[in-house]
């Protein structure tokens, strides 16, 4: 049986990749995908601990997260599409209209 540390390393690596994507990439689509990665890192931790404790709570929470992530992707992509139509670009640094 794999020790829990392996799962945690994997989750940590995924989370770091996702964070780096959010921080460094400027395309809104890529940023959204990176957020998905971070969510899934959290899912892995949830499931791993769930298995370790023999308790299904974590798995339930992971399913919930997946559902939320799907909804978020749908809404997010819709927003991206409408932004693209209105502004002819998806560079996240240009989207600062609400600043003032």
């Amino acid at each position, binding site marked *: 049986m794999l020790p829990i540390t392996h799962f945690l390393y994997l989750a940590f690596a995924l989370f770091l990749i996702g964070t780096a994507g959010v921080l460094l990439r400027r395309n809104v689509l890529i940023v959204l995908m990176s957020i998905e990665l971070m969510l899934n890192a959290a899912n892995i931790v949830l499931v791993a601990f769930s298995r370790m404790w023999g308790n299904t709570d974590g798995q339930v929470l992971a399913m919930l997260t997946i559902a939320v992530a799907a909804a978020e992707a749908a809404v997010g992509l819709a927003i991206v599409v409408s932004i693209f139509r209105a502004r002819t670009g998806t560079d996240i*640094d240009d*989207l600062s209209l609400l600043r003032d």
Partner: protein
Amino acid sequence: MNEANLTLGWIPLFPLMGAVFNLVFGRWIMRAFGDRIGREVVHLVAIGAVAFSCFYTFSIVFEAMVDGGYDRVVHHVYPWIVSGETVVGFDLMIDHLTAVMCMVVTGVGLLIHIFSVGYMAKDASYWRYFAYLNLFMAAMLILVMGKSMVMTFVGWEGVGLCSYLLIGYYYGESEKATAGRKAFIVNRIGDFGVILAMLLIYAVTHSLDYDAIRAACASGPESAMVTQTIFGVSIATAATMLLFLGCTGKSAQLPLYTWLPDAMAGPTPVSALIHAATMVTAGVYLIVRLNPLFALAPTTMATVALVGAVTALFAATIGITQTDIKKVLAYSTVSQLGYMFLAAGMGAWVAAIFHLVTHAFFKACLFLGSGAVIEACHHNQDIRTMGGLREKMPWTAGTFLISCLAIAGIPIFAGFFSKDEILLHAYTNASAWSPGLNYVAYGLGLTAAVCTAFYMFRLYYLTFEGEFRGDHHTWEHHVHEQWIMSFPLIVLAVLATFGGFLGIPHVLPGHLAHVLDGWLEPVTALSATFGGEYFVGVREGYADEHGHVLANVELGLMGLSVGVALVGILFARKLYLKGPSAEAKSWSEKLGLLYRASLGKYWVDDIYDATIVKPLRVAGSVCYQVGDQLLIDGVGVGGVSGTVGVLGERARVWHNGNVRRYMAVLLVGVALVLASVYANPTVSQLGASAVHPVDLGGLRPTLGAQPIRIEGPTLFSDEPWFSFQAGPGQVSRPVPAGANAAAPPPPLPQRDPIQRADGKVPPSRPARPAPDGKPDAKPDGKPDGKPDAMPSERPDPKADAKAPADRKAPGAP
């Protein structure tokens, strides 16, 4: 003591309910029912409430106390303030003294309520007037019925408030509103003294109940009130001096009397009720109520007597020259209150209360009579433009004359008996602490009696005799009487005539009983037992074997006071019978400076204005400019908003709309929070607290020092970064990280889970031990502290709530 329990709460509650009713519904009723019926409803509610109180009081006094033979009636309404051993009950009581006060307050109050119907008939905010008047009745009844000083103080402040509200009743005129404020502020000075006195008394008796104060004075010179001192003077003297300060404020004595003449700004029935008959006598009531305490403070007694006598003469001389009908009566009230304090200061408690009662009758009658005159003269109050009113207002003139005779002290009228008794006791009572006081007090009192007779008859002749000096129109169309105003006058005149028979001097033929003396005997009995310098009563050489004053002395003094009164009256008749005569003018020129001083009220108000009011205004203005405008508004409020504004401007730069920047800041923040959680040192309790030796089941006692252990974080290492113990009996000694755990002396528990001799798993951290046999404590012996050891670090809530008894390191003895 023979005591009954009856529901006395109704007596003040009914006027209070009347006040609430009129305050809440009065305006609406006046609008909804029309002016005429609305006024009927308003004053019927107000008068009904007071009539009920009056009826209830008389029933209790005559059925329970006179017929039933009870010494007093008590009602414990509810325990009001309960704090530790201090219990202040909302307790009401009617004893012999309160019975007298209550009957005067409700009786005279009822008559004045009835009079007000006529006097205020055209007033726009009729409901407000009657609501305030009812509120005053409730407060005054609480004042006299309170069973403790706290209750009395509640009433004391309540009547002060109502006085303020009613003086400033016509608040639209700024000088009347100012008069109300003046009364309130001057009274504050006195109330301050009352509060301090209450604290002093409480420090000795641990209670403010009158029974407790009485008990504390029971052993006379040996009682705690005398033996305990503050700043070198006995508590009795200090407390009574402070109480007397309160009395000078409330009862308008020197030096705080200045508010009372200004209080005439209120409606005239208010002057009659509050500023003549009832409220201003509260100070006299308080002194007589606490007479054992005052008797134990001869210094205060002498002060009270002297201040009273000086005030009596001082105010009487001002009254001589005033031209406003109400101002004359106001100074007369100050003067008569001076007489009451003179009596109280000489230890003639009964005489003080006696004069209080008769004064309530004739002064209420005089004020109401002046009210009727003012109403008849188009609200003109200047006696120089009156005269001859007797022709059109015979009832008013007759009752006014009776009251004038009463206040001047002409035999068979009430004032004769009471004033004579005061002057008699001023002359014959003992004042061991201050020899010679008798003659000074008597001399001042007698001179004041001449002035009283003079100014009262000057007032009477100028108002009712001679020819009318006002305008023709007023005389023809306006001067008249109304029965609703004459009726209370007649009742009060009857009382002013026969009220004196409550206290017939012993010396007069027939030897009729001095009713009031016998009635108040239980109240004054205690102070009569004191001896030596605390003796109150007729001094040696003037008393016969029964304790009465010698007959020849009494008759002589009586003749003298009647004589001077007649001189005053005849002199006034000579000068003023046919209006202000040339002779009066020549007298005023002859007296020169004295006349101008009296006319200018001795410039006391101007002196106060220059020495106290103006400096205070300057100080207030400085406080306003520096404290309020600069410090609070400028530095405080302005500073806070300015700082937030500047900081906001700075922080605004960070909100540049760049989502990736936001994300980076968020991550740094999360990292900081996690780091602070891990780096936070752990504090745990070692053993039981020095103060609380009992194990509180994991609760950390907050009182007292206790041995504790402080450990640093364990991140990236097996051992805490640092660790030491502190507290009583423990030397603070840092333990180097990584010290060998197996060595016997170290008191630290092991970070690594190892087996102990008893098979228990020692806690990974001292404060958070794993309970016995819990499987998640994973004693798998991994020494590297890798993340897979995390389950054992997970705090167990059950273990948290339970403080481990054994926090010693394994191996320690």
